[in-house]
């Protein structure tokens, strides 16, 4: 039986040659072995504990800008041959397909994102205990708490990537995430509060005080919002809180920097390299090598080492996020942003942890400098059309700023704008940098990403409220 540790380089090379038999300039085998466990608590009960194992292979062949991809969960000689045969049959022919360089020694970087306590080594009862502790901490906020949902997930994903350039890479990723969602009720009004903790790290990420803190933050948010008034509609200064506020940059800019959107000229950032796309004091990065980052790995899903890419330097656009294919077409270096949800998905350019670098004001100064405005403390998620740059975020926790002070909680607000416009209007950045974990969807693929930011102010932005 084949395992990810024991698969023979000969078989991998044979598969690559088979894929390149009729045409093509690059072939790759991606093998993934993934074990996960999820626990969920709702209604004071741990329900439907679920876990499992997926093991699969994908063969990818490219020819110029054409990609042929086949995947299967039969990881044996027959499965590999079938997948290679499927891409070879579909490929555009050429007279002299690329050859296959003999695979070198396998590269791996154990310890880049240290895992001290492998989650699978921990008794599942301890994990259940954390869910119960978080539930109790949220329920302790009293009768207005109508429902508490707590989720725990662990995921160990081992990948092997072999390609016709002779590269052979192993990466072993452990991800842990803990989420709390609280629903509160008062006089018929319903509000929700959400908080999460997620990293590429072992069970050392979690202990009782930490999960209790996550639960309290979620509950405080849901209770604060019960007293919220409908948000106003109109244009005003907007202060985005640190951490979750990074979703702003992710949506307003990050997606437009992904090289597939650039290659198709379907991004407002296409053709603007070196131009001012943000206020002059704004610099921004994507960093897949951030130690223990939720969106990090030692390598991306094409075997390219992850790294830190500066995308905006003092307001000027200076970098895009590439996978191998788009880098090759653009004559650029891959940046370690070729990611896929699983072996069932073609790698595409994706963000890892994306953030605007901190400034030197304090968060209090930013708020104090705002006479009347909107304070977005946490965002519910957002969407963008990279082609037009138009984006929308839901604000899950928002407040009015009056005379330099955070006052009334506001509900039902959305922030609407267009990428470059908003980046150019950032007029203050604080020093309280923080990163949050989330899942980002694109082309039907969901991958873990981090979004980071310090508290910052946008001088003017459209707030869509209900009042």
């Amino acid at each position, binding site marked *: 039986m084949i395992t990810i540790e024991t698969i023979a380089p000969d078989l991998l090379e044979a598969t690559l040659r088979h894929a390149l038999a009729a045409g093509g300039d690059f072939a790759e085998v991606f093998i993934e072995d993934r074990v996960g466990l999820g626990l969920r608590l709702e209604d004071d009960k741990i329900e439907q504990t*679920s876990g499992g*194992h997926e093991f699969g292979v994908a063969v990818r062949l490219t020819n110029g800008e*054409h990609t042929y991809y086949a995947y299967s969960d039969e990881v044996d000689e027959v499965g590999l041959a079938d997948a290679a045969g499927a891409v070879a049959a579909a490929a555009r022919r050429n007279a002299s397909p690329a050859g296959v360089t003999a695979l070198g020694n396998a590269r791996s970087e154990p310890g880049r994102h240290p895992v001290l306590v492998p989650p699978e080594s921990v008794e599942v009862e301890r994990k259940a205990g954390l869910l119960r502790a978080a539930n109790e901490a949220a329920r302790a906020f009293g009768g207005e708490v109508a429902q508490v949902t707590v989720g725990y997930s662990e995921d160990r994903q081992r990948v092997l990537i072999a390609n016709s350039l002779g590269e052979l890479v192993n990466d072993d990723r452990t991800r842990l995430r803990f989420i709390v969602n609280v629903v509160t009720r008062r006089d018929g009004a319903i509000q929700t509060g959400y908080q999460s903790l997620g990293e590429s790290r072992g069970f050392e990420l979690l202990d009782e005080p930490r999960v209790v803190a996550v639960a309290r933050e979620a509950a405080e948010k849901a209770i604060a919002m019960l007293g919220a008034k409908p948000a106003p509609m109109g244009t005003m200064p907007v202060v985005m809180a640190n951490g979750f506020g990074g979703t702003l940059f992710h949506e307003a800019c990050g997606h437009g920097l992904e090289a597939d959107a650039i290659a198709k000229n379907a991004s407002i950032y296409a053709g603007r390299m070196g131009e001012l796309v943000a206020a002059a004091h704004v610099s921004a990065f994507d960093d897949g090598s951030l130690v223990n980052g939720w969106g990090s790995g030692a390598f991306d899903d094409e075997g390219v080492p992850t790294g830190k890419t500066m995308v905006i330097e003092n307001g000027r656009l200076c970098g895009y996020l590439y996978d191998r294919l788009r880098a090759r077409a653009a004559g650029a270096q891959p940046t370690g942003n070729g990611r896929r949800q699983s072996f069932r998905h073609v790698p595409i350019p994706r963000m890892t942890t994306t953030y605007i670098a901190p400034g030197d004001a304090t968060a209090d100064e930013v708020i104090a400098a705002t006479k009347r405005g909107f304070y977005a403390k946490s965002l519910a998620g957002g969407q963008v059309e990279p082609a037009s740059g138009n984006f929308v975020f839901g604000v899950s926790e928002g407040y009015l700023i009056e005379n330099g002070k955070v006052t009334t909680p506001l509900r039902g607000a959305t922030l609407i704008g267009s990428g470059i416009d908003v980046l150019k209007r950032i007029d203050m950045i604080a020093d309280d940098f923080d990163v949050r974990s989330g899942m980002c969807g694109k082309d039907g693929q969901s991958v873990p990403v981090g979004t980071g930011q310090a508290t910052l102010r946008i001088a003017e932005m*459209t707030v869509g409220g209900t009042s």
Partner: protein
Amino acid sequence: MFVVVDRALDLARAQGASSVEVYAQRATSRRIKVYEQQVEELTAARRKGIGVRVFTEGAVGYAYTSDTSDASLAETVARAIANARVSDSDEFAALPEPQGAAPQLEIYDPRLAGASDADKIEIALALERAALEHDARVKTVDTAIYADGDDEIFIANTAGVRGSYRTNECYTFAYVLAEQDGQVETGDSYSIGRDISQLEPARCGAEAAQRACDLLGARKCASMKATVVLDPFVAAAFIGVLSSALTADAVQKGRSLFATLEGSAVAGTIVNLTDDGVHRDGLASAPFDGEGTPCRRTPLIEGGVLRGFLYDTYTGRKAGRASTGNGLRPSYVGTPSPRPTNLVVEGSKTPLADIIGGVEHGVLVTNAVGVHSGANPVSGEFSIGISGRLIESGRLSTPVREVTLAGDIISMLKNITALADDARWVPSGSILTPSLVIEGMSIGGV
């Protein structure tokens, strides 16, 4: 696959489990993406796996695997049993009992299996061509896709549930960018079927292009209270959000704005919404759900009155009702939970043009951004970004963009005053809906 299913049941019995369900899936699919009249990406896929659900005195454990070897099946069964030990006991959790014969449905068209990759590529190319040739202002076809799937499902449990079926589907999707005076707008469209002969790539490509071009020249408009017409694409996105509040799961866990409203008026009297798991044309139709319970039609809103919710076995037992056949699974990796199958909003015989002709002042909404992030299915409040065209004195006029539409879902449903005759399937969620006309909505502009 029944061999594997029965093997897993035997292994579970041997390990001492007496209430066990095994679900198996085997699937193949194709996805072809073209760009500038070349195949950009072709994906050929095979997928299989099983999920084992174990009930131990009301505690549920689940485990799945893509590896159906004996050793892996034994390990998966052991994991499911171990997971049940961690879960808390719940008096309503129980293995689904057999619920009678499943309906006979025509959900598999054998012709699709005979279509070649070359035929499918030609459809994707025709789709892109239709979009490019439709209007000179089309800048690029960002996405032109042909995709299909062929799925076989097998289920058996120790209470005697046993069934299998095969279903297939195919669709095209186009996402088009149009440009004028430096402004870019987008439009999309789908066509669906169970065989490639049912797809309409030319119509789909042209429609996506037209939807993008219709928005060129869009500007913000003034804030106002106005009549809003949601086209079927936008209406479907709203129905998708509100349907999550119509599941018994959301109701029982205090996460639904409809929780206490069964039997009450929640929508305009002309509104009829049904979950139809056996609709002839619905791509989500199946003889039974992810627990082996036969699928059926379940009225949700009739004449504006909330008639009921969607149940799986567990939520049904908790409410003292039968499952409505809505215990769906995303794949073998996931456990069943109450979810909609095909959602159908009944249309009318009134042409959209007549409806628009009667609107003095309003907006035809053809694109909405943020329905999933800007609408809260728990509180029902929403505020989303929209684009579309102004309606002035019964006529479509200037396109608008970067404006917001805000309100709450129940007020919106109650203010639905008309439905058009243009009902169509929107595959994201499998929703059949016409354009909806809603009075007195808040539009936020400048």
